[in-house]
């Protein structure tokens, strides 16, 4: 790669008591790419992602964003730096409306006295932006933007969470199993959405167990094993069974991939 990575991590370590979830793990994300992260259950993918998104503070190691070292102590700090995450559990508040959820933690206030002194939320503005975003992504047919999220189907909720990340991410978007709970049609939509987000220049980290999806959209595949990066492969040069063999330890990865 000739470009500089947008985000790099070196030697990340995270231990939970006696369990080592990350064992001196490295990570690189380049501008405009879709990087898939695959690995067995318990390989430490989630912990790696949480370390990058600020949900977990690593015990050791450094993370650099745009060449500057960062240490996120909370997801809020990561978000402020432009890193948006779609969590597997979606992190939506069921009783709140779609618009309230999309703007949770970064609400828009009314201008002037109402907003500055009475701290009044600008509901019409938030609802308009939420509706625009959802329409733009063409994800769903939602009649009422102020309906509670708990009244939506699983796919629609996923859509709201993805739309939220796409709307606010300025540096990168992390998606943890975005298609895991979705049907064929909705999965296709989310994959198209991922490519759509990429087209706008945002790099994406995609965590998934779905090999066909990973091989379809990813530019590079980061294979995680036993708490660290085993290798990075190009999906055009390897097959799905190769990737599965690497991540389960059935086959040793090639030297060239290890260096990448």
């Amino acid at each position, binding site marked *: 790669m000739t470009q500089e990575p947008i985000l790099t991590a070196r030697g990340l370590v995270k231990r939970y008591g006696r369990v080592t979830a990350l064992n001196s793990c490295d990570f690189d994300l380049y501008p405009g790419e879709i990087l898939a992260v695959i690995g067995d259950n318990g390989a430490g993918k989630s912990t790696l992602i949480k370390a990058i998104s600020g*949900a977990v503070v690593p015990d050791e190691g450094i993370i650099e964003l745009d060449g500057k070292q960062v240490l996120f102590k*909370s*997801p*809020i700090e990561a*978000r402020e730096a432009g890193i948006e*995450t779609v*969590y597997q*559990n*979606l*992190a*939506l*508040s*069921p*009783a*709140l409306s779609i618009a*309230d*959820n999309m703007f*949770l*933690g*970064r*609400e828009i*206030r009314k201008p002037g006295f109402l907003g500055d002194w*009475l*701290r*009044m*939320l600008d*509901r019409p503005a938030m609802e308009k932006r939420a509706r625009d975003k959802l329409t733009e992504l063409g994800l769903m*047919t939602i009649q009422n933007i102020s309906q*509670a999220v*708990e*009244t939506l189907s699983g796919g629609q909720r996923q859509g709201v969470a993805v739309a*939220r990340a796409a709307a606010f991410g300025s540096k990168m978007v992390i998606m943890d199993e975005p298609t895991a709970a979705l049907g*064929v*049609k909705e999965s*296709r939509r989310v*994959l*198209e959405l991922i*490519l759509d987000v990429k087209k706008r220049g945002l790099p994406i980290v995609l965590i998934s167990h779905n090999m*066909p999806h990973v091989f*379809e*959209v990813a530019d590079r595949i980061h294979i995680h094993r036993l708490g660290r990066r085993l290798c990075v492969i190009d999906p055009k040069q390897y097959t799905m069974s190769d990737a599965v063999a690497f991540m389960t330890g059935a086959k040793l990865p090639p030297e060239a991939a290890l260096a990448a």
Partner: protein
Amino acid sequence: MSQVQEFEKALANSETSVAAFDEHGTSLVKRIQHFLHSTPAAVPLIVLVLSIAVFGVTIGGRFFSSYTLTLILQQIAIVGILGAAQTLVILTAGIDLSIGVIMVISAVIMGNCAVTYGLPTLLAVVIGLAAGAACGLLNGLLVAYMKLPPFIVTLGTWNIVMATNFIYSANETIRDADVDVQAPLLHLFGLNFRIGTAVLTFGVIAMVVLVLILWYVLNHTAWGRHVYAVGDDPEAAKLSGIQTKKVLISVYTLAGLIAAFAAWVSIGRNGSISPSAAVTDYNLQAITATVIGGISLFGGRGSILGTLFGAMIVGVVSMGLNMLGADPQWKVLLTGVLIIGAVAIDQWIRKVSV
């Protein structure tokens, strides 16, 4: 565009119209359920109107007069204000058992500062409010940072504050007359004015205004939405960028502050300031009003207007049974029925997903 995989080619011919279903699911009951789901204060309001109607019919004009109805408001002002504080805490899926004794100790501190120490009354009030807020802050810190269950934390502070109250005050009552002479401002919320036969105290006005302000804050400010989000799903709230600890601490502190404000109102209503009021079950009365008002004990659901209606329901029932000359225990019994009924309705409404 992404290349379409083999099994997905069938999608090209799939129906594109929005799914439509026969409307057999929308029976009247379902529609009521859905309405109640979107309007959480409706249930207590309906119960309130019904109970006023029932007592109005059985007792007649004596009950259904503006004098009696405003008298009920005067009787519930303190519990209504405490219920508002309790609502904030319960919305975060917590509970505050210490709220009643925080009120009492704040009243004692206000009274002592103004009457015994001879401080300016306004300063005494500020000190009392600060003391209440400090108690709430302690609860908040223990809940947010020590991650102790709110029930345990406030069970502890309930005892601690109650004992502190008795030790500090030596259980000496400050007499009504002394307050009147030295600190009439403490009796502010006991003052009343008449509109026809209706008698309203400033305490009643304060309760209504406070509930309206909190309603606005909970529904139209970011902080209010965060209170709901934290009670709904704390993990999701945290991941979506809400500083859950700060929200919890501010909620418990505000609850303590409101309890101290209730103290000021209670001095107006009772006249004297008695430390032994700490043994009254104000905390349970506030929880009762909140629960009957449809605030879910599991957090994140309900409207604070419901709490106001809940407090009024208890007031109406107790006044009505009183006027009917019933044994006071009937009021206790009926309150129990209302609590269980309210929670049962809450569970039923939660099942809706329309």
